[in-house]
């Protein structure tokens, strides 16, 4: 199975591990990530204003590239996934936006939200299956207690993201079980890390991340996993934190025997 793949800006720079381990794992699991050519940055945050058009065009271009190849589009960074999935919904359901965007882009054929957008985790769950993944595990992470950190972007608004139950998600916990470890459920797993606030108001995100890491540690987690480079950055800035934070793809690659010790 071949998918169009959108890595996004950060996966080419500070979050190369997130990307590298995903690609390696995909080939073992029997699917291919074909990077969209000449993709542009998604902008990091979804433009909320109903009159915002230009800021959504880079996402539309990527979606249209996948459509031309008749492939689903796979994302990995939580922020890219959030932005592209929401723009796709606009292109499908919001006439003012899809009309203006198409008028602006002058594509050979109008884009109307035809492309399916999947987060890498959704591919694992819905296309591969966690049972199948479990069969491919050669080095199970037995005995590891892992806290899934969802944050905001993958879950909300659930009416559009349709990723999992926004208040009681389980996709990452099921993933953790599939790689042989034990998931730790803790209250702050779907609360915000502070996001972009950490640029100018570092104390604010620090306080929020303290709550998250203390909550996870208090419930017995040895480590946290995330799909978001910004969550990773913010969580690592907490001073009291003792537990390490990994990208979920790194642990996936480890379980599949793809990671050098």
């Amino acid at each position, binding site marked *: 199975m071949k998918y169009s793949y959108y890595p996004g800006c950060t996966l080419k720079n500070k979050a190369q591990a997130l990307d590298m381990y995903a690609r390696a794992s995909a080939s073992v699991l029997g699917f291919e990530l074909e990077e969209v050519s000449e993709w542009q940055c998604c902008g990091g945050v979804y433009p909320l204003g*109903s009159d915002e058009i230009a800021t959504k065009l880079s996402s539309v271009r990527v979606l249209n590239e996948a459509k031309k190849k008749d492939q689903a589009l796979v994302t990995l960074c939580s922020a890219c996934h959030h932005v592209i999935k929401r723009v796709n919904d606009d292109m499908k359901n919001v006439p003012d936006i899809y009309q203006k965007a198409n008028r602006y882009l002058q594509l050979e054929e109008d884009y109307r939200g035809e492309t399916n957008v999947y987060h890498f985790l959704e591919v694992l769950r819905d296309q591969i299956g966690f049972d199948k993944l479990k069969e491919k595990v050669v080095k199970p992470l037995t005995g590891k207690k892992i806290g899934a950190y969802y944050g905001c972007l993958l879950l*909300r608004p659930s009416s559009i993201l349709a990723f999992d139950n926004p208040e009681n998600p389980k996709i990452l916990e099921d993933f953790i079980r599939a790689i042989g470890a034990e998931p730790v459920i803790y209250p702050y797993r779907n609360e915000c890390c502070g996001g972009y606030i950490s640029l100018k*108001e570092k104390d604010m995100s620090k306080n929020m991340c303290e709550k998250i890491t203390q909550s996870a540690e208090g419930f017995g987690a040895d480590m946290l996993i995330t799909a978001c480079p910004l969550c990773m950055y913010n969580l690592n800035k907490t001073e009291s934190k003792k537990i390490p934070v990994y990208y979920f793809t790194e642990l996936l690659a480890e379980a599949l025997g793809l990671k050098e010790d």
Partner: protein
Amino acid sequence: MKSEKKQAEKIKEISGVNPLKCMKCGKCSATCPSFAEMDIKPHQFVSYVQNEEIEELTKSVSLWKCLSCFACVERCPRDVKPGKIIDAVRQLVEREKDGDYLSPNEIPELLDPEIPQQLLVSAFRRYRR
């Protein structure tokens, strides 16, 4: 600045929010991770727009404390989407001359070696036109 009535209309248009749907339960503010840092709270934003008191909103520090985490949007029992109102006011401010909250000149001293690109592009998009 335009009249507050016109601004209120513009905010409703940009946000797509109908403040009259709000039943003042306060759940948005109760769930907001930035609540303590805000001078005007999320549920109050809805009332201010309803009452066409926009001047104060445009001066509120809350505009720069909202994280767009969508907790208020997801958890609102009336689907009012207070976060979209806050964002609309922020855009109203940023679309005016000198309305930006972040200047490229500030960036060098805010950088550290681990900063992900995602943080910079997100901040630029939220904090300026």
